[in-house]
């Protein structure tokens, strides 16, 4: 199979934008992505597109992919809308990589978008609920926060993880997000703020939960045959892994880990021929604070049960051994469901091309993105690697 390369990526701001539409946000992301390609890339170069979107609110549920790609001048190319809840555009990225590796396309757009802010709170909760086990979880009265709260509850009971450790995830990610101009909640928060916020679903409080967001993100994946046209500093897609599972948490054996992420990580590390120690940064799916801690363990950043100690150690802060969620993560940067996975790739591209501004990790060569759908019904991981030797 051919190698695939990430040559550009960009996003809109994440937030609440009543004056924007899904098309205008997608245009912003697409133009940011093409503008980021070192040697330039035209819409007419794109052979195929995969667009992630959950469809919150039910607007343009049919053909939502072509609806945005036609808007940015990609009319005519094959376009597929990818739906895997919060992992939609992580999976769109994987589809793009597959299209390139298979030889069917040379330049592929992987994008995503979501509009979530123009609905009532009840309607938003309904649309978040559709990614749970709609028949059996929703009848119990649980919310999406309630599902992750149950994971937190078991992790705390089993491993002694504390509420303070959960709050430290929020403090770190807000500190990073405050350095990201695209972040929705781009302000710092104190440990005290993050511990004293109102309870949403015990043991999770408001600072343990990410916001709902409007936003779009795009990444451009190209083949080894054409990569030299677009950049002199190629970033290779070194590893890809994905997995699925029972949609309902109560149907899984494990509440203290996400088996789909564990499977995805194993596959991605093996393909890349690397280990967690070889990573210089990671963007992980922190829809809730407990989700970031579970990711530490599922992706092998620490031993099972030790995620609480890892966040406390400071090693996942910028400047630590393995900075996690330098973008601010879902918690601070925001979580426009269909855009989130591609948005993580945007951060990986910025870090690896040295354009992450105040939050730049020192001279990284390799980073990982980890995108989860629902409470773990789907998970997808990418490992991106700078090819320093090749360009030297």
């Amino acid at each position, binding site marked *: 199979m051919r190698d695939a390369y990430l040559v550009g990526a960009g996003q809109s701001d994440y937030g609440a934008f009543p004056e924007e539409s899904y098309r205008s946000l997608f245009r912003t992301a697409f133009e940011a992505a093409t503008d980021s390609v070192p040697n330039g890339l035209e819409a007419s170069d794109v052979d195929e597109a995969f667009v992630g979107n959950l469809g919150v609110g039910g607007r343009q549920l049919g053909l939502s992919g072509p609806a945005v790609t036609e808007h940015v001048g990609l009319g005519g190319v094959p376009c597929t809308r990818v739906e895997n809840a919060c992992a939609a555009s992580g999976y769109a990225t994987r589809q793009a990589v597959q299209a390139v590796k298979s030889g069917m396309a040379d330049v592929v757009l992987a994008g995503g978008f979501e509009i979530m802010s123009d609905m009532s709170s009840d309607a938003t909760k309904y649309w978040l609920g559709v990614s749970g086990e709609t028949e059996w979880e929703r009848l119990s*009265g649980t919310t999406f926060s309630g599902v992750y709260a149950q994971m937190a509850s*078991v992790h705390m*009971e089993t491993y002694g993880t504390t509420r303070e450790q959960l709050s430290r995830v929020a403090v770190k990610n807000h500190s990073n997000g405050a350095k990201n101009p695209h972040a929705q909640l781009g302000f710092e928060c104190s440990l005290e703020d993050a511990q004293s916020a109102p309870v*949403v679903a015990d043991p999770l409080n408001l600072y343990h939960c990410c916001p709902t967001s409007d936003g779009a993100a795009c990444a451009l994946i190209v083949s080894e045959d054409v990569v030299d046209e677009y950049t002199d500093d190629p970033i290779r897609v070194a590893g890809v892994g994905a997995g699925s599972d029972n949609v309902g948490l109560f*149907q899984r054996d494990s509440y203290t880990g996400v088996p789909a992420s564990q499977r995805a990580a194993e596959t991605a590390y093996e393909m890349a021929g690397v280990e967690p120690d070889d990573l210089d940064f990671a963007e992980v799916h922190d829809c809730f604070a407990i989700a970031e801690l579970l990711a530490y363990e599922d992706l092998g950043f620490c031993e099972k049960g030790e995620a609480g100690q890892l966040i406390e150690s400071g090693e996942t802060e910028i400047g630590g051994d393995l900075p996690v969620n330098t973008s601010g993560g879902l918690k601070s940067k925001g979580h426009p469901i269909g855009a989130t996975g591609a948005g993580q790739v945007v951060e990986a591209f910025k870090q690896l091309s040295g354009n992450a501004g105040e939050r730049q990790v020192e001279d990284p060569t390799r980073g990982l993105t980890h995108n989860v759908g629902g409470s773990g019904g789907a998970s997808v991981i990418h490992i991106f690697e700078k090819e320093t030797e090749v360009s030297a």
Partner: protein
Amino acid sequence: MTGAESGPVEDRRDSWEGPVPVPTGANSEFWAATLEGELVHQHCEECGTAQLYPRAVCTDCGAVDPPFEASSGVGEVYTYTVCHVPGEPGFGDRTPYVVAAVDLEEGPRLLALVDCDPDRVEIGMALEVTFWQVSDEAALPVFVPQ
């Protein structure tokens, strides 16, 4: 079905504003039983696996249409959350309320509302099933401390 211990069924059809089950396919027998105050689960005749929610096949051996059997309706809290922000309409005036993953005596796990003081719930707590009838076709299993 034999050995069923019935739980009380409370008629909430007039007041319920929450989600309503839609009995179809493999679920039909489960919801029909709830109207009689019975909690049933599938018990595979081939391999003995006990499962909920009802599926077309046994999750372990793949045997088609595993038959239903009555559960005692007794279980314990595997884990739980206390929702301070409600789910859909129907739960709004109940906050804070308890949702628990309940491990039934027979093995299957069910996620359900627990009708009790949130300060009282703890992991391992013994529960028994009751039912809230929310439509002509179904009653929701709601657990209470034993």
